[in-house]
């Protein structure tokens, strides 16, 4: 696990010094994170990295996990899907059980924090305890909140509005709420296996393993095999470009083998590829971070042609490697790419084809986009910025006004 000071080589000593200055202002304040799992899933992954770094900065921070049985988590899964806009049946009985489990947890978990930082909907109703125990309460929504099912949104809003502040990952997720809403984007860790620098030999050996020619242009999309990532659309793009450039396509990503839809998409993608030797469909097992890193670093252009996207951190990963990225303007992607400044935003297969050809023909322009992209990610989407935002978020609970002197 990296130390906070290791990041100075990447973001600059001044940025790390400023994090310490900010953290100092939180002296005497304890922050208690609460979520629903300590392993697996994006939230646990973020907390696993953030909590030790916050501690190294001198912040008093803890992390607790609620308890729930299979029935509870099947209900929270339904809530999750409903928030994604899927049409799922959630009964009154389900909601009552959801509340019952939250109340049991509220009585069992010692609420020792001065700030109770609740993550995602599973433990959202713990806030009912606020009247009794006081303290400052934060709710962090990590999921896509663009088209939530209205009934579930109304149900959750009753709890959200009891918090002091809600936190969302992208502006499109903002709702009409009675409480302040803060924008905090997710981040990537430049020192993780997925993003750290790799020796050229490692990259070459991985290309060799997958039979990819490093001397011809490589166009890559890294994503799960999912309809919403439009992998067959990417193949259509490739075929149109292939008429003009002798390029290769990599479609690489993971997916659970017990996910029937994932397997179906994978089969359709293979059928669409029709044994073209220059289309590399790579189904990666979990813990393939080094492979993903190497494939991104070996690419000439990286695509993220998603039809829907939560935040789309694969874009940040690609930009961090100074790659020119062409992506759809969905979810959090427009926050990461400013069109023609730090990448290209497209809306169609034809547009994507046009820009790939342009970037292959104009490598200097492509290089500039990649460099700007890396700089943009460095300034805005690395874990150090995430830490800074969290520190400010905690401080904001104790200070009001447009300009606060600390």
């Amino acid at each position, binding site marked *: 696990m990296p130390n906070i000071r290791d990041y100075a080589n990447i973001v600059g000593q001044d940025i790390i010094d400023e994090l310490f200055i900010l953290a100092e202002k939180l002296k005497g304040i304890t922050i208690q994170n609460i979520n629903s799992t300590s392993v697996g899933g994006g939230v646990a992954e973020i907390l696993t990295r953030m909590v030790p770094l916050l501690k190294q900065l001198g912040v008093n921070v803890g992390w607790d996990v609620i308890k729930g049985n299979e029935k509870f988590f099947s209900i929270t899964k339904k809530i999750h899907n409903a928030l994604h806009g899927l049409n799922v049946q959630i009964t009154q009985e389900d909601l009552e059980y959801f509340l019952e489990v939250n109340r049991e947890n509220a009585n069992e978990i010692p609420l020792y924090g001065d700030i109770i930082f609740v993550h995602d909907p599973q433990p959202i109703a713990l806030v009912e305890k606020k009247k009794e125990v006081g303290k400052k309460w934060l709710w962090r929504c990590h999921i896509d909140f663009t088209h939530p099912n209205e009934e579930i949104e109304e149900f959750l809003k009753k709890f959200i509005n009891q918090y002091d502040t809600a936190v969302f990952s992208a502006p499109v997720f903002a709702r009409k709420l009675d409480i302040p809403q803060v924008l905090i984007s997710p981040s990537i860790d430049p020192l993780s296996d997925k993003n750290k620098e790799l020796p050229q030999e490692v990259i070459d050996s991985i290309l060799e393993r997958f039979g990819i020619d490093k001397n011809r242009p490589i166009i890559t999309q890294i994503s799960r095999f999912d309809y919403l990532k439009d992998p067959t659309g990417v193949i259509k793009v490739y075929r149109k470009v292939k008429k003009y450039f002798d390029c290769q396509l990599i479609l690489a990503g993971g997916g659970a083998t017990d996910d029937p839809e994932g397997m179906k998409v994978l089969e359709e993608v293979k059928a669409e590829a029709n044994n073209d030797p220059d289309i590399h469909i790579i189904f990666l097992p979990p813990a393939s971070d080094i492979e993903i890193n190497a494939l991104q670093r070996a690419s000439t252009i990286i695509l993220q042609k998603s039809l829907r996207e939560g935040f789309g951190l694969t874009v940040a990963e690609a930009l961090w490697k100074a790659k020119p990225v062409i992506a759809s303007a969905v979810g959090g992607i427009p926050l990461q790419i*400013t069109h023609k400044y730090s990448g290209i935003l497209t809306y169609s297969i034809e547009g994507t084809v046009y820009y790939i050809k342009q970037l292959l023909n104009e490598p200097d322009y492509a290089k500039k986009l990649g460099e700007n992209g890396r700089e943009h990610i460095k300034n805005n989407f690395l874990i150090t910025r995430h830490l*800074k935002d969290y520190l400010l978020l905690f401080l904001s609970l104790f200070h009001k006004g447009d300009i606060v002197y600390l």
Partner: protein
Amino acid sequence: MNTTPFYFKTEFNLVYLLGIKAKNPKELLEGIKIVPESSIYYHTHRFLHQHHYLSPEPPNDFAYWLKNILNLSELGEKIAAVDIVKFKKIEDIRNEFIKILEDYISKGKYIPEAPEGEEFYFKSCTTFVLSTPYVAHNLSEFIEIIDKISINSLYFHIFEAPLRLNKNENDFSEWLRGIGEIELAEKLSNLDPYTITLEGLRKKIKKILSEKICQI
């Protein structure tokens, strides 16, 4: 002559979502009329913070949206051309935007709608100001520190003082004037920080000050 040392400060912004969005120029105008001052400030200065490596002339968010999302190049250009540096109050910047948008709408010009998900989302920010360990007692110390401070610190002293803290000029010029360096103060005061990257600005300030030291 003033001999007060210069205490370098730094700043950070926490961004708020206002839950107000616009899908066309009319709704943008309505939003601009009602959002808090800190929102107008945020949308005219965000690019400086987040894209401070880009040059020249980072646009404001309103102009960028009109031009790149709604394809209203002329209107976008007019909004981008609002000379922020000449305004002393954020309310005056707001009124300038209102004037341009009302003029456009009253002429019955084309009103396109943004695609779903690409509406303009109004945000605002709280600015936290903190002290840094850096203190300059004289010009040479000042030049040395200019190299070490973060972009956030440079930004605070150059942009915040004249626009949000009701001062007549940026903090650096004010201090230089105080220690009798009138010419340097004027030179720094006459820089247009909106048409240069922050790193470019740092270099320029250093160059102006170093030339003076060489003369001594």
